[in-house]
């Protein structure tokens, strides 16, 4: 974000405390100014903040520096066209009273506010459907409050019925049950999931059907909520890395990289050139892996099992390279703050090239089966369309947003790790249907391979770690032979990397879209608060917009096309 943009934003809000953090603007407003500020950000044409990325709460109960209010809410909003990012922070004097909702401005606020309510117990005045989202309905209390004991589990005895929700949705869609009765039609209610092969994990898709057409749809998530954020508060910064593996487990290393990038940005660590290239190579390689699994599973749902073997076998073969490099197949935990766990092994270029060729072959074989396949076309073209405007409003990012025709990609629009000097294209779709979502992913595989090849050509020699022993473990020879090295090692292991207190947000273009991390640091070796901005959470929030009016079988393949990964969705 440029200095002029920062000035521009500040000048539009006289009387509001604006300051620059990293390279975005953070504003602090009072609750009564909140509505005005948010609508200005969204509606002023020269501001045009159309993408509400995330909302999160903060509980300052144990924060070392006393704050005026115990709770605060933070909104992260982006103007993707001009690469502007702002965070609006509002103190909440009374959580039961809360702050006004912003669901009328951005549709993504609906689920985002529900999550804040669920985790922190902060009310949003005027929210259309404020109830729990991640924790189960019999849960008492709010787990991310600092006075909630992390070990206090609560048993859930029954699933939630969701009857009211679907009835309300039917009403909102203008379906009148009495007229249907008159013509002897009855609405059928059908659950897909939470345990169903088509959901690829645990999500509950609840539909109201007229024959096979979907009249209304509501969804329930949270079945894989495993307390990432609360657990992270009890781990040192480096110990969080294994937890990030398990967010989007189809592209584990991308999460590792995104996470350490966010920590390094605050610490002001400039990683070495070799490390940057290494991260680019591995990110793109894992982007390919992620897309392979997504497309393979999606085509199986359509009945094309052969594609699964063509695509998944290449992923399986890639594990040879990955496990040789990282020691693990799936959960790599390969980054460290300030570098990578290890350098590449000798001869990796050859292995990588063999792998890339095999992937190209597998993908081309699969494309030969689907590209001109009439059945695939009929099932995917024009089904489950989503316009660019709706997609933005629901907070879509990544391939699903690009399929709707919005060319937003952080690698191009807010480049990091030298992405600006690589030659690659950002594929976009034209209609935002299932076909576009699949094809965007196919194209991205080829683009990523292009990037990997360029990076392999130009990767420089040199160290992969920065020489800053406040953040990076010293080499073993120093630990064993001099007292300073020993002290550094001891401190880093026991206390963790000391991160100066403050709050910041940093993001990364992951396989599913913008993966962001919002930190609150209190100067110790553990994050005081760590919120993930998961791309699929918001994509799932817009699922009903895609499937209502379509057939039930389309909902199944649509779910495959948006690549919902439970670990990231529910955290």
């Amino acid at each position, binding site marked *: 974000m440029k200095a002029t943009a920062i000035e521009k934003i500040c000048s539009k809000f006289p009387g509001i405390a604006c300051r620059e953090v990293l390279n975005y603007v953070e504003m602090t407003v009072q609750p009564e100014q909140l509505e005005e500020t948010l609508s200005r950000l969204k509606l002023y044409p020269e501001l045009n903040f159309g993408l509400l990325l995330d909302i999160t709460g903060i509980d300052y109960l144990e924060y070392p520096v006393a704050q005026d209010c115990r709770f605060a809410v933070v909104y992260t909003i982006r103007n993707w066209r001009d690469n502007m990012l702002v965070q609006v922070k509002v103190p909440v004097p009374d959580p039961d009273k809360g702050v006004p909702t912003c669901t009328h401005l951005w549709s993504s606020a609906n689920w985002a506010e529900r999550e804040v309510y669920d985790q922190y117990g902060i009310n949003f005045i005027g929210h259309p459907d404020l109830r729990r989202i991640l*924790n189960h309905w019999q849960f008492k209390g709010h787990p991310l409050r600092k006075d909630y004991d992390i070990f206090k589990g609560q*048993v*859930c005895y029954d*699933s939630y019925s969701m009857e009211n929700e679907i009835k309300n949705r039917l009403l909102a869609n203008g379906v009148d049950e009495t007229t249907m009765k008159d013509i002897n039609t009855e609405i059928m209610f059908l659950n897909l999931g939470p345990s169903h092969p088509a959901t690829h994990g645990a999500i509950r898709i609840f539909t109201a059907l007229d024959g096979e057409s979907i009249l209304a749809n509501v969804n329930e998530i949270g*079945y894989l909520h495993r307390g990432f954020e609360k657990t992270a508060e009890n781990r040192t910064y480096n110990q969080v890395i294994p937890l990030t593996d398990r967010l989007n487990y189809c592209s584990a290393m991308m999460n590792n990289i995104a996470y350490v990038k966010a920590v390094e940005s605050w610490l002001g660590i400039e990683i070495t050139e070799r490390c940057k290239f290494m991260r680019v190579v591995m990110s793109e390689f894992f982007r390919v892996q992620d897309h392979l699994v997504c497309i393979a599973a999606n085509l199986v749902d359509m009945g094309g099992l052969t594609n699964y073997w063509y695509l998944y076998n290449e992923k399986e073969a890639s594990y040879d390279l990955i496990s040789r490099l990282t020691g693990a197949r799936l959960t790599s935990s390969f980054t460290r703050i300030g570098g990578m766990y290890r350098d590449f092994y000798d001869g990796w270029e050859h292995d990588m090239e063999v792998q890339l060729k095999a992937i190209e072959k597998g993908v081309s074989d699969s494309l030969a089966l689907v590209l001109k396949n009439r059945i695939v076309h009929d099932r995917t073209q024009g089904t489950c369309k989503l316009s660019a405007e709706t997609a933005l409003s629901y907070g879509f990012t990544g391939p699903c947003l690009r399929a709707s025709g919005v060319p937003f990609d952080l690698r191009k629009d807010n480049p990091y790790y030298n992405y600006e000097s690589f030659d690659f294209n950002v594929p976009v779709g034209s209609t935002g249907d299932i076909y576009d979502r699949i094809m965007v992913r196919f194209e991205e595989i080829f683009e990523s391979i292009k990037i990997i090849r360029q990076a392999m050509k130009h990767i420089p020699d040199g160290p992969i770690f920065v020489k800053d022993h406040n953040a990076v473990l010293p080499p073993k020879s120093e630990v064993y032979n001099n007292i300073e090295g020993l002290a550094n090692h001891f401190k880093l292991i026991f206390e963790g990397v000391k991160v100066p207190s403050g709050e910041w947000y940093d993001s990364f273009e992951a396989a599913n879209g913008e993966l962001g991390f919002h930190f609150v640091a209190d100067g110790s070796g553990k994050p005081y608060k760590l919120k993930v901005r998961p791309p699929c959470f918001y994509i799932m929030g817009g699922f009903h917009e895609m499937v209502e009016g379509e057939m039930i079988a389309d909902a199944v393949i649509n779910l495959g096309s948006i690549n919902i990964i*439970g670990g990231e969705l529910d955290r």
Partner: protein
Amino acid sequence: MALGLEAALGDSVITTKLDEVVNWGRQYSLWPMVFGTACCAIEFMSAAASQHDISRFGAEVVRFSPRQADLMLVCGTISYKQAPILKRIYEQMPEPKWVVAMGACASSGGIYDNYCTVQGIHTIIPVDVYISGCPPRPEAVLDALIKIQEKIQTESVLVDRHKEYRGILD
């Protein structure tokens, strides 16, 4: 022309025990119900794909309907929100049935010792075999399958399994 066993035996008679013949049949045609929730399910996908090929052990007929399956593979973290569903699916499977807890999460909660994660699925349903690892390698899944087969050999058709079991949801 007879091709299989009958070719060698002709029309002679074999005497055996009922347990032996039934168990022999059961152990080589286990139909798994994959209760995949998280990362471990991806490794199950690998176990089922060409390279590791679970069909070598007669267990490739993956059923997602519990009513058609007799081997439940719990692959992934089970949260308290998920637990009633796990139990319901288990109950829908016909007897006899076996359960494998795949991975650290299903076995003990794994790295998630916190407010939302069930600390091991044995608190919800009875478990026969546990697989360690986070995630376990596909070979470990095959190993667990062999363990189940061995276990089946020792069982009797006359004895009800797990009649006494009581979990936190019972």
